């Protein structure tokens, strides 16, 4: 650095902007931003992300009391919507636009302009050949040679222009304008993808619904177990339709020696769909990888399980509950599922049942029963019961799948040795102290459904297809310039031609060979291998 104090010329605001713009649209900056996007995405795979699993994020923060909150502040659990990730990709896209726009205008002009002027010294170019037609054997006028060359080049897809240079004559030719079009198409389509993604997250929604066989889902807000609308979604936009789960079938691998023996290998739900748009209702199969599309929304099969039908009669002999109870399972291959049933309507005291559902229950000495198979070969309910106040009346909403039995009195527990075990033979149990009876009446299956609506999807798909096309064109359509010059000297007519690739072109030499062959055929030349 020089010791002299240098005063930089005042840039001014516009100057600063122009300077920033120039820096941002530099290829080096684009490279840097690209690599930054790649690096910035890494934490998104290391830390649990809220968009996938909020519970995991909470667990992580609880497990790391010091680092957890800091990481949360740094948005490490929301990487892909974080300020820093957004900043990088937005800068990248601005840089991209800054690159594409001038290139597009430049190319638009180039497409209308004549091929580049013929260089003075053709032999300096990457591919250079020459043919001398000896005056004694061949009478080919200079102008004719150039016209022939132009015609041949034109047939090969070149745009040509013949130039009279006085003593010599030349033709300038260029092809592969599509290459740059593909390049611009690819980058523009990337912007299209971004717009599609944005539209989806603004105007789409997603929801979840558990449906037991026989249940009907009606598309309105209250029907959803969970509903998360996009930022700008208006719930009045929900289109009416209904879907009824008629039947859910599960196929199991029953080949004895197969490594996947006993596992469920296929799920198929029969769903009756009423689009409520004038079309007749129809029944469709819902499977994994086979969603149901209705009125712009899509229904996906993402979970399944058992819903035992339970009847509870209270101490006064009234039916306090009767119906299927959805039992959740946590990844056990034999579907050992947890059952929680709250019976607020039972008199004189409220009842709660907590326990397990086992599709193939096996009882054992001195240990609780277990499930031996995911198929319902011996459906069994293993329950404990409680009486007292469920605490539902204080207005605080409760999770259906969680019950707090702390303040309740146990009636039947495993510890007391009077746990309730119900199966297809023993379907009924009497609760102690005349609190009522519980009956295992039957079994249904349920499905867990995701319901999605994403209006940006078609835009993303079309953009992706265009980007892919653009990519292939920009990589594999060669852009080439060819110049042919002819002039007469003492030996005869000398025809020189040279080729120049614009961009990657490993087959430029083959093109030169091809041209040589075509010229030779046209002028009836023979080649001798030396």
């Amino acid at each position: 650095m020089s010791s002299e104090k240098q005063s930089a010329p005042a840039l001014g605001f516009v100057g600063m902007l122009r300077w920033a713009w120039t820096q941002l649209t530099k290829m080096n900056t684009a490279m840097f931003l690209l690599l930054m996007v790649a690096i910035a995405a890494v934490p998104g795979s290391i830390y649990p992300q809220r968009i996938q699993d909020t519970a995991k994020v909470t667990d992580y923060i609880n497990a790391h009391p010091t680092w957890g909150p800091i990481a949360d502040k740094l948005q490490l659990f929301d990487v892909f919507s974080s300020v820093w990730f957004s900043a990088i990709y937005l800068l990248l896209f601005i840089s991209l636009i800054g690159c594409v726009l001038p290139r597009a205008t430049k190319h638009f002009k180039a497409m209308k302009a004549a091929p580049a002027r013929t260089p003075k010294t053709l032999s300096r170019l990457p591919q250079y050949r020459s043919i001398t037609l000896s005056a004694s054997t061949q009478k080919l006028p200079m102008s004719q040679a150039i016209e022939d060359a132009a015609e041949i080049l034109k047939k090969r897809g070149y745009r040509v222009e013949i130039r009279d240079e006085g003593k010599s004559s030349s033709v300038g030719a260029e092809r592969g304008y599509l290459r740059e079009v593909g390049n611009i198409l690819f980058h523009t389509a990337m912007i299209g993808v971004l717009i599609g993604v944005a539209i989806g997250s603004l105007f789409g929604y997603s929801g979840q619904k558990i449906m037991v066989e026989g249940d009907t889902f009606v598309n309105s807000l209250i029907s959803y177990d969970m509903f998360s609308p996009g930022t700008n979604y208006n719930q009045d936009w929900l289109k009416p339709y209904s879907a009824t789960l008629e039947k859910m079938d599960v196929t199991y691998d029953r080949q004895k020696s197969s490594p996947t023996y006993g596992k469920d290998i296929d799920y198929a739900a029969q769903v009756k769909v009423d689009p409520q748009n004038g079309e007749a209702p129809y029944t469709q199969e819902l499977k994994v990888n086979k969603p149901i599309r209705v009125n712009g929304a899509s229904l996906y099969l993402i979970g399944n399980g058992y819903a035992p039908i339970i009847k509870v009669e209270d101490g006064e002999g009234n039916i306090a509950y009767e119906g299927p109870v959805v039992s959740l399972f946590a990844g056990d291959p034999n579907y050992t599922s947890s059952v929680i049933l709250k019976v607020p309507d039972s008199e004189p005291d409220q009842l709660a049942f907590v326990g397990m559902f086992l599709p193939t229950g096996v009882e054992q000495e001195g240990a609780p029963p277990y499930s031996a198979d995911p198929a319902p070969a011996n459906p069994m309910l293993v329950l404990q019961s409680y009486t007292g106040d469920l605490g539902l009346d204080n207005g605080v909403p409760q999770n259906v799948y969680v019950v707090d039995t702390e303040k309740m009195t146990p009636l039947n527990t495993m510890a007391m040795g009077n746990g309730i075990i119900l199966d297809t033979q023993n379907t009924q149990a009497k609760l102690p102290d005349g609190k009522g009876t519980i009956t295992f009446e039957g079994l249904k299956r349920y499905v867990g459904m995701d319901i999605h609506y994403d209006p940006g999807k078609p835009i993303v798909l079309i953009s992706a297809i265009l980007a892919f096309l653009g990519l292939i064109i920009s990589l594999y359509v060669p852009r080439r310039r060819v110049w042919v010059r002819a002039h007469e000297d003492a030996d005869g007519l000398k025809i020189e031609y040279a080729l120049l690739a614009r961009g990657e072109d490993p087959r430029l030499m083959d093109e030169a060979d091809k041209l040589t062959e075509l010229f030779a055929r046209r002028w009836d030349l023979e080649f001798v291998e030396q």
Partner: protein
Amino acid sequence: MEINETLAQWSEILMVVAGFAYTFAFIAFTWDLAVNSRATVQAEENTVQDRELVGAGARTRTASSARMAGVEQGTGARGAGYKASAMAKINEHVADADMRYDGPRRPAARIGVALMAVAAIIHAGGVFSRGFAAHRVPWGNMYEFLTTGAFLVAIIFLLVLVFRDIRFVGTIVSGLATLMMTVASVVYPTPVGHLVPALQSYWLVIHVSIAVLASAIFTITFSMAVLQLIQDRRERMILEEGKTGWAFMRLVPSAQTLENFAFRLNAVAFVMWTFTLAAGAIWAEVAWGRYWGWDTKEVWTFIIWVVYAAYLHARATRGWTGTRSAWLSIVGYLCVIFNFSVVNVFFSGLHSYSGL
């Protein structure tokens, strides 16, 4: 459909035999590098290399010399290449840029190629019998990704060999194939089984096959990038210190040639990776209800795509050609390996189909 257990057992035996065949190919290629590098030194010293382009006289043209000259001039990288005189000096100590089969015979390399072909045939038996045993495509878990991936590496290598003499990457390629087969059999042995419902889709055929194919090409370009870095170092030594050491690198073309060739392969693989990404998104939409959700596997597939996109741009960026672009290719491949091994096994996500 029942699993054919006899066929499944045959598949496992064939895979192991193929693994051994790759090991022998690896030994042959290494032997070739060790022995023939010395032989080529001698052969080159004995032959006067005539690379001058004979100007195509009236009605005559030498096909081969024109070709050679064209290669010399035609594919130089912008701004990064050496001057012609330096290039001529380097060319005396590296293999020809056109990568054609000429020069002295290399028996060990021939044995290597033959073993590679035999291995690939046995390997084909292993891959296909596994597919037929399970009545589905043989790429549903880690073992199958690796065995099918190694098979494609071998096939692509052999296919390129038909057109170009790239036996110089034989050591690395056969070594990687051996490694893949060993890891498959030792770390991820998985008996032939049915697919979980989420994988039962024709998208498995489309999305995963192209992903494995792209990874196989990245494997080969990774080998070339490593050689490019070594050759680049050696070229500098030749130019600056006049040393011509590392004789085994004499069988390898110049760093510039390697870069050009790897770029072409990487461009093909990038198109395939783009397709993998797009097809994966379409499948995710069908199976999970959203086309993109930043699942761990999606994150890494995206990172790989961005790194190779940067690699493609590097070629047109001043200061990013040569060694830097080779490093990008290596980083990209390390991401591919990471995405495959670490992400599949240790990260939880929707793509946890490792069969473990």
